[in-house]
């Protein structure tokens, strides 16, 4: 049932051997890219103002928080785990931000506190999962309830953010011609870059892949499994905290019911981006492509006008199915 990590053809280091054709590992990501391109082409040909810089910019602006969540989720899923708490932690971070700003704290203090809340919850997950051997699903599920409960405890009702300096931070918009970008997009892209570098160029990143490929083997190889596994959840929690901050910037409010079901969007984005839920295979860039595909579905349905919003869910489900089948076909051919 479980697909073992594929035997990769050993590549010679130092660029001696140049791959003549595309590595199989990249196929799912390429598939996502093709779908994204097709959606852009179809959208562009169907609707007049679809391929304008404004629409594409908005795609990023509206999904900046989801990009950050998906990057964190990729780390956890690569180790073979899952993090169901990200939606609630995001909400917790928005609520903390809003509540503390309302209480008159300066943004310079509030921002680290909001992000740190996510970090602490992530650390708790990691400890529960690794040291107490609670299944990731259950541990992060408890974390999900916990964070949501804390939100209600802090603020049962929506709190508006009217702190001037925080608002200034949020409205910072840079313009390259017609291309707009908010600071949240910039932060999301920085997180993406960091995620990419950490996963591919550091020892920690390689260990993440190794654990996903086979925890026992990683342990026998003498890799720091415990530290890496806990850190993966810390990364995800921190990303969720940061995502909440971006969300608060965009919404200018903190509300305890934000992000219900957002963990599913993040997981769907990661899966559509070609990461296997068994762990060990996948790319952080793919996850971001997945986020863009999800965002584009929303955009297209908005452009279509006559389609009801619930079609979004159905289309996402169908896309998930297609990608899962594609991955399945690929892994079958490998073995």
């Amino acid at each position: 049932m479980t697909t073992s990590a594929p035997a990769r053809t050993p590549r010679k280091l130092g660029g001696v051997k140049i791959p003549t054709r595309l590595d199989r590992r990249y196929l799912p990501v390429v598939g996502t890219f093709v779908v994204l391109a097709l959606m852009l082409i179809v959208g562009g040909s169907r609707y007049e103002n679809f391929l304008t810089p404004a629409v594409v910019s908005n795609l990023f602006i509206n999904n900046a928080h989801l990009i950050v969540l998906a990057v964190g989720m990729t780390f956890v899923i690569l180790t073979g785990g899952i993090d169901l708490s990200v939606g609630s932690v995001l909400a917790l971070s928005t609520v903390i931000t809003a509540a503390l700003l309302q209480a008159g704290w300066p943004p310079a203090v509030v921002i680290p506190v909001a992000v740190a809340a996510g970090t602490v919850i992530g650390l708790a997950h990691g400890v529960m999962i690794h040291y107490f051997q609670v299944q990731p699903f259950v541990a992060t599920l408890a974390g999900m309830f916990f964070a949501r409960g804390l939100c209600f405890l802090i603020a049962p009702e929506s709190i508006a953010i009217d702190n001037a300096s925080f608002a200034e931070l949020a409205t910072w918009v840079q313009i390259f011609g017609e291309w707009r970008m908010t600071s949240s997009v910039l932060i999301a892209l920085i997180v993406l870059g960091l995620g990419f570098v950490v996963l591919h160029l550091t020892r920690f990143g390689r260990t993440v892949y190794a654990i996903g490929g086979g925890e026992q083997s990683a342990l026998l190889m003498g890799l720091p499994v415990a530290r890496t596994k806990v850190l993966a959840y810390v990364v995800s929690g921190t990303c969720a905290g940061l995502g909440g901050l971006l969300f608060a910037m965009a919404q200018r409010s903190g509300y305890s019911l934000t992000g219900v079901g957002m963990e599913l969007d993040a997981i769907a984005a990661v899966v559509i981006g070609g990461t296997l839920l068994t762990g060990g295979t996948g790319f952080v860039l793919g996850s971001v492509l997945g986020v863009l595909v999800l965002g584009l579905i929303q955009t297209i349905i908005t452009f279509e006008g006559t389609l009801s919003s619930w079609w979004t869910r159905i289309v996402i489900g169908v896309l998930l199915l297609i990608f899962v089948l594609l991955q399945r076909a690929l892994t079958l051919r490998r073995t």
Partner: protein
Amino acid sequence: MTNLLRHYLFWPVAALVALLVANTVARPSFLAITIRDGHLFGAPIDILRTTAPLLLVALGMTLVIATRGIDLSVGAVVAVSGAVALSHLASSPNPESPVTVLTAVGLALALCLVLGVWNGFLVSALGIQPIIATLILMTAGRGVAMLITGGMITTVNSAPFKVLGSGFWLGLPVAAVLAFGVFAVVAFVVRRTALGMLLEATGINPAASRLSGVRSKTLTWTVYAASGLFAGLAGLLISADTMAADANNAGLFIELDAILAVVIGGTALSGGKFNLSGTLVGALVIATLERTVTVLGISPLVTPLFMALVVIAVTLLQSPRMRERLTAATRRPVATTPPEPQPAARPDSTEVKTR
């Protein structure tokens, strides 16, 4: 003492008893059951009634988890079931007639069975990981339910259908009788035939059990179909209780509650051995917990927090490492007064975790 502590039902039952005691302390009449209009009334009866849908979903979930799977789609199936039944009732000329109600129930259950079979097909025929296979329906299912209700909350008046949710039979709530009846039948079939053992074999090692002649694929297929069917029945109970089909909120998070019930009951998510009695206790714990929150006057908004604390406590106490330490502590020669350095350290560590 050691055996008692190590029994898989010890912690869940302890949690249930603790909750009941807390309730009785807060409200001495909590356990009182009175007879009114020939029906039994009281908080315990009410808990039985509210457990019913969760118990059904958790029952299917236990079987699925036993085969090393998971079914995330049950919440969506609950919504679809209610949407189909109530839409049929609403569109029929005579929603009060028993025939219409039976058709509605039949239609809903049939569709849910099909959804379950679809999950089973993805998992057993195509070999997709259960968590993703059912994630697909979980994502799309509520969209389908919205499609059926046309995006509105369908409400309808139908006395025969309402009986399912709030009627009484022999003084007991119909919903509870149905759910506990189905539970008893399934428990009997699974535990008094080889079926349960075959399910466990499939969960422990699918390849080995297939090689030794167990029809793993058929079994896997069956448990997902059963899970869909039970979720459909739960959806009928939920929609009959409110007489409204809310595609967005019916059965929201019930998959998580059900998985918690299974885990609290001592069945590991890694498959294999399963405890139906544990699931029953787990479902009761969750239903009682929700009740406790109102009895103790805790704001219902904080329910998730309260639930998280209980779940963290129970799962940590059940975790292999904790069990090892507990048994090690009780096995010591001076076990009469165990110094328990670890248990003392434990509450601290959980506090750190939950902060």
